[in-house]
């Protein structure tokens, strides 16, 4: 399986938007809570406290599920490289930029 870009985590507001394709990764459970967002296996996430909703790529979903389980970053990297055909260095770089994105939209703290 090829690595999908992490950056397909999209916040959907009232403005017109394109829906990101969201395909359920085979390893995902039915739903899981990450921060205040409940994610479905099909990549749709709803934040009941803010009323915002998101779509995430299969890769992003795997990473957030791992974060919700308290998995450390090196092990998250292991999970990603185990699921997708990707060089570890590439996955590591993409993972860092994805974490930065999560910090930006307030889903994780800076220190994570």
């Amino acid at each position, binding site marked *: 399986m090829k690595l999908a870009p992490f950056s397909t985590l999209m916040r959907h*507001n*009232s403005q017109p938007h394109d829906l990101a394709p969201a395909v359920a990764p085979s390893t995902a459970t039915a739903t899981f809570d990450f921060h205040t967002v409940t994610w479905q296996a099909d990549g749709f996430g*709803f934040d*009941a*406290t*803010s*009323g*915002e909703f998101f779509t995430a790529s299969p890769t992003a979903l795997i990473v957030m599920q791992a974060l919700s389980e308290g998995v450390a970053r090196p092990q998250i990297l292991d999970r990603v490289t185990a699921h997708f055909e990707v060089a570890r260095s590439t996955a590591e770089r993409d993972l860092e930029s994805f974490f930065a994105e999560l*910090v930006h939209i*307030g889903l994780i703290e800076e220190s994570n």
Partner: protein
Amino acid sequence: MNASPVIAVTGLHRGENPQPGSAVIRSLRRVYPELRIIGLVYDSLESGLFSEEDAPDAAFTMSYPGAGEEAFWQRLDAIREIERFDVLIPCLDAEMGPLVDAPEKLRERGIHTCLPTVESFKCRDKSRLAELCERTHCRTPQTLAVSDVNSLHQAAMTLGGNVFVKGRFYEARHAITPAAREAAYWHMLEQWGAPVLVQENVQGEEYNVVGLGDGCGHMLGCCSIRKMLRTASGKGFGGMIVRDPQLDAIAQSLIAELRWNGPFELEFVKSEGAKGEYCLIEINPRFPAWCDFPSALNCNLPAAAMELALGWQPREPLRHATPGKFFIRHAIDMTGDIRDLAALTTTGQFFRQPREIIPHPAASRGL
């Protein structure tokens, strides 16, 4: 009092800037389908009069608030000679002042209401919001009241230039340039009178809370939404139910501080960013136009308000609707008949008759 109470509701026009009356009627009928409801209208073309689902049983024209309080009470008495209503649910901001100011006039007429005290009503006034927010540790945008063009520009400069110009009762216009500010100022002055308010622009998502206060500092029920769709004038045209303990706590502290009695709507903007804070924009002293949406989800605040006004025991506890449910407003065309319009225009009253059904030609073809 009537054996079965008769309810009067105002604000029946659901146009570009929808009024709450029709939503209140719809909510009341969800619980009390046989309830007799009369509409008090200011215009014979208020759209709610012609609705199939949420029209009042009868309607009466009211004198405009500008005609003065005496005219208002005289007209109310004249209407009650024909339809002795027991409960009044006012749905327009401009009506609230005279009613809140004169609880004894309502009492002596035997009209039951669910209204705040004069003091709590004044404390939520746009011009006094900062004081209230200071007492409740709630953020609010800086707001300055102005009554002339020079002070308008001065206020705008003080607030950084990028401001909202707001009417005393309704409407807000975003204004960045001096020309836009001035145009908005004159519009608000003409529509709603002085003072005009100039408010700092806080950018972020808009959240609204509708609820019902018991007058002792508690909320009998509430429902919070994030505005999903907005019209060009900023009116919510769609909303998603949210449940944020932080927002609930802010709402509770404001209502406790005001010891608010009756319906209310709190309007917030949550500033952008991961650590965005709720900022109180205004408190409306009535139901909002979207109040029937929670009613459809077992949080029927208008029915509870009527029960509270009548001193009835609440039917059941009001539930907070489930996050994730949302509403989208859908504008449709109503059918009216010139006879209804004539009755309301000439006599100031209109009694709803069963609708004439115009058969579709295809119906007789035996398709």
